Structure formats: C-alpha cells, structure tokens
C-alpha cells in the first residue's frame, strides 16, 4: 500500500469511528450506529423489496447520467469548436445551473407526473451542464499547434473529433463524469423521495415515516455503495485506459 492508500484508509476509519461515537451519544431515534445500519442492510439483502427499489434507482441513475452526459458532451463539443454557439447557449446553461434543484423537481413532477421519466429528466437536466462546461473548457484548451497539424494533413471533421478533441478532453471529461455520478445518485434519491412510488428515495421516505432508523441508514449505505460502484468499478478503469499515454 502506498501513502495515499494508507491515509485514505485511516480517514475512512476515522469517519466510521466518528459515526459510532456520535451514535452512542445520540438517541437511537435520531441516529443508527454503523453496526445497526450494516445488520439492517444485511437483513434487507434477503428481501425482494430491496432489489426492486435498488434496481429501479440504478436504472434511473444510469439513464439520467447517460442522457445528461451525452447531451452535455455533444453540445459542449459543438460549443467548444464554435464560439458563436457557445455564446448562444450560455443563457440556457446559466439558467439550468442557477435553478435550485427543488424547483426542477417541482417542474418535472408537473410536466411528467410521478415516476421514472421525472427522475431521469431531472438527473439529465442537472448533470448535462456540468459535462457541457467541462467539455467546452477542455476543447478550448486543445493545443492550437496540434490543430494546425490536423489542418496540414487534412483530417476530416470526424477524424479530428476522434483523434484530436476527444483524447484531449478525456482528462477533464472523466473528472466531470465522476462528478455527475455522485450528483446523479443524490438527485435520484431526492426526486424519488418527493415524487416516486418506487426506488431508494421512496423507500427512504417510508422508513422515515415509520421511524425505522436502522433501515434508513441501510439505504444511505446503499446509495453510497452505488456511487462507489460507478466510480471505482466503471469509470476509474475507463479513465486509466484513456489516459494511459500520460504514464
């Protein structure tokens, strides 16, 4: 283990102990201990109720970040290459990024009713500008000297996208994707809590009204687990693959 891993592990243990100490000093109606949460999660793992809600949330998060990520990437690429389009899109970007997410939930519920469409829409709308901004920045930072090489050797449009722009923005883009995954999971849970009949957020709402505190914390752990899977199992290896030329 290197220094980074050791310190991260220590930080993680400190966090867990802090939680344990806090739980021992607070009423159990307010905070479940790590052991209670994990025991409760273990019990939940044996019920179909868990998997139904877990899977539907995963589906919503995936679809949301796919739509949001893809549209942010496409518009970001276009706006990064063409400054006029960037200026045109700027008010819209500002509008979405400044809008409180609770208001977006309210509007999404009004337009799409309760359920998956609403949640996916919300995640997509909130994550798209993050990817958009990072893509634009990345493309604007693409080496002008390499763009001249592409001109001299007459690379067609898609060759430039694939061999010049995409690799050049792989760094900022993968950072943005990790960011929107965390964001997507948080938004999904909120959207489900406020406007869905299934999913982790919905289940959290139930535990709260029934005052099932260990279950509530079991769902919190589940959400963190989802983000961890996306980040470390899915995106880090992809990132490492695309950035291999730097090592």
């Amino acid at each position, binding site marked *: 283990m290197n220094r980074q891993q050791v310190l991260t592990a220590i930080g993680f243990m400190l966090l867990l102990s802090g939680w344990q100490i806090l739980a021992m000093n607070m009423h159990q109606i307010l905070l479940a201990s790590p052991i209670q949460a994990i025991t409760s999660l273990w019990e939940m793992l044996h019920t179909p109720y868990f998997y139904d809600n877990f899977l539907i949330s995963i589906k919503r998060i995936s679809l949301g970040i796919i739509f949001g990520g893809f549209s942010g990437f496409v518009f970001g690429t276009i706006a990064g290459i063409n400054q006029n389009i960037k200026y045109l899109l700027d008010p819209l970007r500002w509008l979405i990024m400044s809008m409180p997410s609770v208001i977006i939930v309210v509007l999404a519920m009004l337009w799409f009713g309760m359920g998956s469409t609403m949640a996916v829409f919300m995640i997509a709308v909130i994550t798209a500008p993050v990817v958009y901004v990072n893509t634009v920045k990345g493309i604007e930072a693409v080496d002008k*000297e390499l763009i001249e090489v592409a*001109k001299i*050797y*007459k690379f*067609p449009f898609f*060759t430039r996208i694939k*061999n010049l722009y995409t*690799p050049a923005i792989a760094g900022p883009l993968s950072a943005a994707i990790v960011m929107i995954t965390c964001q997507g999971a948080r938004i999904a849970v909120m959207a489900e809590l406020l406007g869905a009949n299934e999913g982790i957020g919905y289940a959290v709402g139930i535990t709260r009204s029934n005052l099932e505190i260990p279950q509530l914390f079991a769902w919190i752990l589940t959400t963190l687990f989802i983000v961890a899977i996306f980040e470390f199992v899915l995106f880090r290896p992809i990132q490492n693959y695309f950035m291999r*030329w*730097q090592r």
Partner: protein
Amino acid sequence: MNKIITFDSVGKKYGQKTVLSNISFSIYEQDIIGLLGPSGIGKTTILKLISGLEKPTSGKIFVSSKKISYVFQEPRLFPWKTAIENILLPLMVSGHSKKEAMNIAKHYLDSMGLSEFMDYYPAKLSGGMRQRVSLARALSLCPDILLLDEPFSALDSKRKGSLVELLAKSIEEYPMVVLYVSHFPEEAKKIANKIHTLSSKDKLVESNL
C-alpha cells in the same frame, strides 16, 4: 520549368503589425530552397502562407499542389498516439489502406532508425527522436511540397549532420519541392540548390548555388 509556388506582391499583417509587404518570388519544380533570414523576420510566416494556415492580407499566392507536408519548429506529435500511430493516421486519412499505411510507416520509422521505438508514446521519446518521427510523418506522405521550419534546431550538431544527410537522401529518392528554413547558411547549403534570404519585410534576395 513549371512554377510550383508563386508569391505575387504578397503582404501579411498580424493585427496592426506588418510582417511582410510586397514580397514576390517563384519556386519551380525540383527547387530545394534554403530560406534564410534573421529571427523574427517572417520565415515561418512564409511557410504558413504557402501551407494555407495563414491567409495573405494583400497580394496573391499560387500553389500548384495540395500535397504539402510541414515539419514545424517543434515535433507536434499527438501525445496520445504512439510513434507509429502518429505516422499511420495521416497516411490513412490520405487514402491508404491500413495494411499499406503500416508498411509505409514502418519503412520510414526504420529509415529514421526508430523501428525499436514504434510503440512508444512521445512522452517516452527524446526530443531528437520526436523530431525524427515528425520528419518520418512528413516524408511518408510523399508530398509534392515539403516545408521544413528549422526542423533540427533542437538537436546537437552530430545528430543534426546525420539527419540532414538522411533528408538529402530522401529528397533524392523522391523528388519534391523543398523549403528549408534555417539560421545557418552552411547547413542550408548542404541540402539546398537555391538560397532565398529574407533580409527585411519587403526584401527577398534569391541566389543560385
């Protein structure tokens, strides 16, 4: 002899700054031009005008061929592509099949003494090796016009000498019009058969060797 490149009273400004004014000259088939002149006078600008990377502000430029290779003052390799991939890409864009491109790229890397390093990323190559890859990329396309902007300025004199020889050999094997920018007349004279000296922004002196 056929004219390949003609500058007709060409002027170039960057913003308010006049870099070239009223420059006229012609370059013919089989010309190998050493382009000399002090630093900051506009030599790179002339190459950029020929290649179309910059447009003249006044006057006219005629270039008879679109097959132009350009070796810049820096290697300018794609850092996310290996040495051989850097050469393959323009070859495939220019219409070669993957297999043809592979053979050509290997041949040129070999002639630069780099076959062992073909799978290295540029970050793992020395400055001189990178510039040789860049030169291989330019030559592999068999251009009609080869623009070389102080391609060896970053190399030590021994390396430089052998690369100049290598370049001279390649030009002999595959005739093309060459513009070789340099600060050093002796170096240019090793390859060139004509010398053009840009002595001020409106004065280009031509001399045969």
